[in-house]
């Protein structure tokens, strides 16, 4: 009801305003700047920005993680595993199953999962930030007493481009929610890394969209829900199983054959160049936990795409990736080398997800029991 009522009020005000015909002098500066300042102050004080974009999956994902945290008595928990990822994780890694396996193997743990289809690194950072911001002081204190392991998804497309999928979502609430000043340095460092002088012209649509979103958020503009009562947040599930296969999926031979290929020098140089932006983000991830000590573990899904498989192999060898799970040294590849377990070249179906979750959990158990994690 806000739009028709307030809109008609504004319409009447705008239509009724009039200045003397032939007004030659320009208005004094304060008549233009004071309303702007007043408006910015009132808006920013009275209506916080994050609430303005409820159509993002962030509130629903954070809610489900919070509920899981509230339901569990942390006294009996030794490890809190926090998994973040995109659609690969959403379809391929079931946090509940990982938790069950860990507990079966004598590792009392709680697994929280923040994954969503199409979520790029910037968006995933936003999920994590919002979850940590929503923690109560007693929960923070309790987490400080436990071992927190942040499990981060590795995937070529998203790692090469922190804004992957940005244009698909455009300047919707979903992308506006994560395109705040926090993410600006990452975007800038990625853009300077990736774009040559001509690319700045060629990519003008993306750039203009980014600038528009950043300005929108910088001034905390927001939209209707700032004034309307927000609908109650609905829990978003971080694991959604695929039960069918994409008609576009064309498996090429054996998964193991794809995974065995060693990347050439040109490829590794390209991987290396496109990842420089991640150093800052790695630091951000470490700093976001409000003083809770956290270890990091990376995981990657096997892929039928050679470039993805090459990338995973290359990432495994990078320094600072001591905890990296992609199935190497486990029977994972052998078990997943069946096309019927896959939705497409990257995403698993439910039986595949069960296998992957189980193997990943076993990997964590092994690292925990060997006291290295």
């Amino acid at each position, binding site marked *: 009801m806000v739009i028709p009522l307030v809109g008609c009020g504004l319409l009447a005000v705008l239509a009724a305003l009039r200045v003397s015909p032939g*007004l030659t002098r320009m208005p004094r500066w304060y008549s233009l700047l004071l*309303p702007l300042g007043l408006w910015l102050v009132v808006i920013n004080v009275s209506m916080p920005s994050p609430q303005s974009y409820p159509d993002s999956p962030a509130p629903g994902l954070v809610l489900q993680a919070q509920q899981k945290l509230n339901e569990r008595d942390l006294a009996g928990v030794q490890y809190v595993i926090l998994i973040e990822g995109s659609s690969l994780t959403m379809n391929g890694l079931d946090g509940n199953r990982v938790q069950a396996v860990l507990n079966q193997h004598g590792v009392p743990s709680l697994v929280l999962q923040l994954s969503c289809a199409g979520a790029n690194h910037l968006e995933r950072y936003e999920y994590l930030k919002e979850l940590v911001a929503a923690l109560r002081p007693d929960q923070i204190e309790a987490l400080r007493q436990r071992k927190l392991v942040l499990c981060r998804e590795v995937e070529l497309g998203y790692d090469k481009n922190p804004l992957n999928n940005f244009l698909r979502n455009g300047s919707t609430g979903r992308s506006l929610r994560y395109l705040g000043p926090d993410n600006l340095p990452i975007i800038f460092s990625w853009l300077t890394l990736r774009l040559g002088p001509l690319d700045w012209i060629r990519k003008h649509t993306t750039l203009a969209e980014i600038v528009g979103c950043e300005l929108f958020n910088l001034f905390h503009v927001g939209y209707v829900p700032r004034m309307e009562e927000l609908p109650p947040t609905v829990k978003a599930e971080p694991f959604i199983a695929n039960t069918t296969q994409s008609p576009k999926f064309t498996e090429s031979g054996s998964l193991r054959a794809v995974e065995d290929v060693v990347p050439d020098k040109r490829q590794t140089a390209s991987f290396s160049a496109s990842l420089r932006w991640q150093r800052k983000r790695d630091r951000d991830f470490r700093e976001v936990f409000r003083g809770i000590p956290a270890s990091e573990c990376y995981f990657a899904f096997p892929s039928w795409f050679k470039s993805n498989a090459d990338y995973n192999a290359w990432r495994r060898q990078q320094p600072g990736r001591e905890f990296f799970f992609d199935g190497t040294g486990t029977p994972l590849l052998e078990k997943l080398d069946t096309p019927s377990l896959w939705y497409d070249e990257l995403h698993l179906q439910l039986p595949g997800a069960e296998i992957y979750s189980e193997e990943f959990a076993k990997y964590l158990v092994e690292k925990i029991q060997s006291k290295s994690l």
Partner: protein
Amino acid sequence: MLFNSGSFFCFLILVLPTYWLLPSNSLRKLLLVGASLVFYAWWDWRFLGLLSFVILSVFFGARLVLWQRRKGNRRRALLYLWCCLGVELAVLGFFKYFNFFEANLLVALQSLGVHAAASSLTFRVLLPIGISFYTFHAITLAVDTFRGTVDREVSLLDVALYIAFFPQLVAGPIVRATVFLPQLAAKRTFNGEDLFVALQSVGLGFLYKVVFADAIAPFVDSVFKAPGQLSWVYLLAGALGFYCQIYFDFNGYSLIAIGVSRLFGYRLPDNFNFPYSATSLTNFWRRWHISLSTWLRDYLYIPLGGNRGTLLKQLRNLMCTMLLGGLWHGASWNFVLWGGLHGAVLCAEKLIQGGRSTQEQRDFSISTSLVAGWVITQIIVFLLWIPFRAANFQDTLAFITGMFSLRSGQSPVEQQVGLIPWLLLVLPIVCDTFAVRSLRVWREKPALNPEMAFAILILAGLCVVMLAKTGLRPFIYFQF
């Protein structure tokens, strides 16, 4: 680059101060031409060549027409005019109507069993944005030069700016050469009133577009996507939604265009005058898309014979004008149907009014009672927007039969669509048509202290931004 996008805001922030800082009129015009080309290239730089071709062809065409006219050789001038019009219409015809005629030709050939010939014809032509508007500008310049209303050699820079001036480049208003070119002669000035009127227009335009039109648009899109599966209530709400959406969307665009032009010191003509208060269809066309309807009157209806000749000839002229006006909106039989039905109602009004005088015609309403005239006119306009918006004939038929047969719908589809609040459909349009109309025509309304007026204007504008939905939705008339 949409007016309601961040990129346009950045573009304006760069161009506007630079424009006013430049010392000479020529430099300012040069900047505006450059900025307009960038604005156009933002969509697809490949069509810059086409826009340049239209500018150059009308520049040389108008020069030749003027040269022959000054020599007193009217026949030769007419020949050059037709050549120039032929070029502009060929450009418009090829880019806008090739696919349409080709598809119809294929159907005709296939019905004759000629399949091999048909398949060899198929290739797709991309529609350059704004082509209908800038070719009309080009035609206006050539015809006005022939008529003598433009009686000077117009420089290439002025022609380029007239054709490509970015506020009106992609969806009008269609500005007459006689209105725009004199404004190019002298350096533009800018005062407090210009700033106020410009900001007021932009503010109103944004309110219409991003608040009212965009709030209705998703519902309208959903209803017109599945007209066969929805109940009559949804169809009625969808049709009413489009009746409101198209007005707020296009008037919003026009007001922003007028306001942005005014920021550069140029005045564009009004495009709307509360069309939903019209008491006859004739009156509606004097209020709706005024720049197009007057263009069609002056450059098509009158040259066809206008009100001269027998009543039958007048009706023929009217029908031709409206059919072509319908086709101008888009290459589809639905637009032809829309134009044809408008033409038929206009002919009926002409027949009913018979031989009344011009003054009487101006005041004429389809009924002797103004209220009845208003109701009948708005029902006709409302119904005729259905073929305008529907994807094809089948959807139009499904929509109208569903609405009038009081059909019940399929609940899963309806649940997915969700009925829009009626208040959102009714209140803004009623408020605009009656309350705002009264405010706008109230000439004696008190003038506020300038500082107070500007402060309220800025605050109201910022509140409009707050009410706006996120996500860019292009203007409906961009497709024409």
